[in-house]
């Protein structure tokens, strides 16, 4: 390619960077055995491409060209650095350098595995939960430290420190760069799925701050979910992807133009994203008919799918939803699941019965600090015409709610109660 096509080559390299740099990075970690070195090698590789490709033209396989260039540059740099130390005194260094010159395996499936290795390493349960999330977004998704810090409302230096520590632990404790074997897989996959769901929820629910949704994080989580399903189609991985897609399908409908929250019942269902619902529902069906018993993510996705399939709120199959909550509660006994079940019960059998169930849960004490429990109680009391009790419950829910739109929603409900 002649040098006159410089802008075109630049554009190609930019596109390649956006699309493939994380994949190349993941492979470089495997080849170089170190995050920092791989990061540096990645940038060296793209710099080399900028120098060479305008005059030599694009190589046949740009990705493997970049991997080779990055690896070569890094080993070359290590050699130069080591020259100043006494190399002959350090047999470990000599050995690692000869390892590096082994034939580069460029098979496509191996490169794909590298991305999965990176996900499992970043989500290793031996790393602090906060660090797992930060590291995954930084290393797998390629977000900058500043972007992650802004999304999680954390000061950038704190977040940077978290990432540095996690990388230090990976290196010093020798956390291996690999996809776990059969025996470890279920527990380790749980950890990966938990990180992905956390990222999704941070984007979807936004625990603090004014904006009810931070779409970028949800988008990243769905991309990660797809990557895991593509490389490791386990039922729970599909279940989680389905759950995220079904929630995401309502994004447009769940807030009005002012960013105020709209409840499921009041949403304009024609604004739901039906392509996402179809994809999510198909994944749910696949997860429910798989050999294994459906896991918690698949069950939650199944519940979301029942909602999604109702054209009008009154068409919702509450019998099915209560049944799914029964299964979920048996599998993961948690007060929050029990709360959701009580709300579904109120829809199936009436608010009186739902409230009885909910009050029994509240007496357990674990839900007392949970805003949604009080909001649910307020709503059931309102429907039963018990306005004084509804008022008290709304007030309690409001004091527990930090976030703007959710708080304002409760305040509107409270104001609408008959005096």
């Amino acid at each position, binding site marked *: 390619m002649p040098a006159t096509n410089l802008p075109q080559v630049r554009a190609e390299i930019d596109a390649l960077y956006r699309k493939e740099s994380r994949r190349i990075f993941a492979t470089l970690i495997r080849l170089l055995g170190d995050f920092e070195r791989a990061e540096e090698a990645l940038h060296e590789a793209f710099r080399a491409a900028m120098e060479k490709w305008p005059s030599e033209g694009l190589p046949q396989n740009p990705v493997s060209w970049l991997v080779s260039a990055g690896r070569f540059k890094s080993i070359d740099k290590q050699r130069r650095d080591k020259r100043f130390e006494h190399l002959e005194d350090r047999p470990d260094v000599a050995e690692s350098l000869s390892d590096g010159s082994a034939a580069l395996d460029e098979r496509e499936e191996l490169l794909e595995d590298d991305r999965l290795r990176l996900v499992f390493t970043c989500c290793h349960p*031996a*790393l*602090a939960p906060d660090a797992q999330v930060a590291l995954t977004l930084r290393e797998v998704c390629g977000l900058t430290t500043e972007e992650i810090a802004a999304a999680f409302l954390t000061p950038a230096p704190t977040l940077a420190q978290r990432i540095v520590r996690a990388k*230090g*632990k990976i290196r010093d404790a020798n*956390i291996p760069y*690999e996809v776990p074997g059969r025996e470890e897989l279920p527990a380790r996959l749980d950890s990966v799925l938990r990180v992905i769901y956390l990222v999704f929820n941070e984007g979807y629910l936004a625990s603090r701050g004014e904006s009810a949704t931070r779409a970028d994080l949800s988008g990243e989580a769905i991309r990660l979910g797809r990557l895991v399903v593509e490389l490791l189609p386990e039922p729970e991985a599909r279940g989680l992807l389905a759950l995220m897609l079904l929630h995401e399908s309502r994004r447009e409908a769940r807030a009005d133009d002012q960013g105020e929250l709209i409840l499921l019942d009041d949403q304009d269902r024609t604004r739901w994203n039906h392509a996402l619902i179809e994809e999510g529902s198909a994944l749910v069906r696949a997860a429910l008919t798989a050999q294994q018993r459906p896991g918690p993510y698949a069950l939650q996705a199944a519940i979301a799918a029942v909602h999604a399939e109702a054209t009008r709120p009154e068409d919702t199959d509450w019998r099915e939803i209560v049944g799914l909550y029964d299964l979920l509660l048996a599998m993961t006994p948690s007060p929050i699941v029990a709360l959701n079940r009580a709300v579904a019960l109120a829809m199936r059998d009436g608010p009186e019965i739902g409230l009885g169930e909910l009050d029994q849960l509240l007496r357990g004490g674990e839900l007392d600090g949970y805003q949604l429990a009080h909001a649910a109680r307020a709503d059931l009391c309102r429907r039963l015409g018990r306005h004084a009790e509804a008022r008290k419950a709304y007030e309690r829910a409001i004091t527990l709610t930090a976030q703007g739109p959710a708080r304002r929603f409760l305040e509107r409900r409270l104001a609408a109660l008959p005096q």
Partner: protein
Amino acid sequence: MKYLCLVYLSAEKWSACPDSACAAYAGQLKDSGHMLDGTPLHPVHTATTVRVRNGQATVTDGPFAETKEALAGFYLIDARDLNEAIQIAAKIPPAKYGSIEIRPTRELVVEQAEVERYAAAAAP
């Protein structure tokens, strides 16, 4: 009789004692036949804790924080990586009752001349 001497240091004093001084003292103990095995540990942020409940091993970051648990013994193991170490640690019988803190060991970083200087200074 064997004794395990555990060195506890605060974060501020973590690097206060030079490795060469430790190497020199370890050298003395070896010469006198007292030293069986010893190693410095990486700082506590590199620690991983494993516990087994209902046959299920859970892995968390950091040391076990509740102060009521005290060190009850140690296993110095050779494992391929942290995953293998976790598998071995999960099979240590007391994992069912307490917890096992896994800490990677490190090498002393020393200069021979320094070690000799410390050894000479400590000589009677």
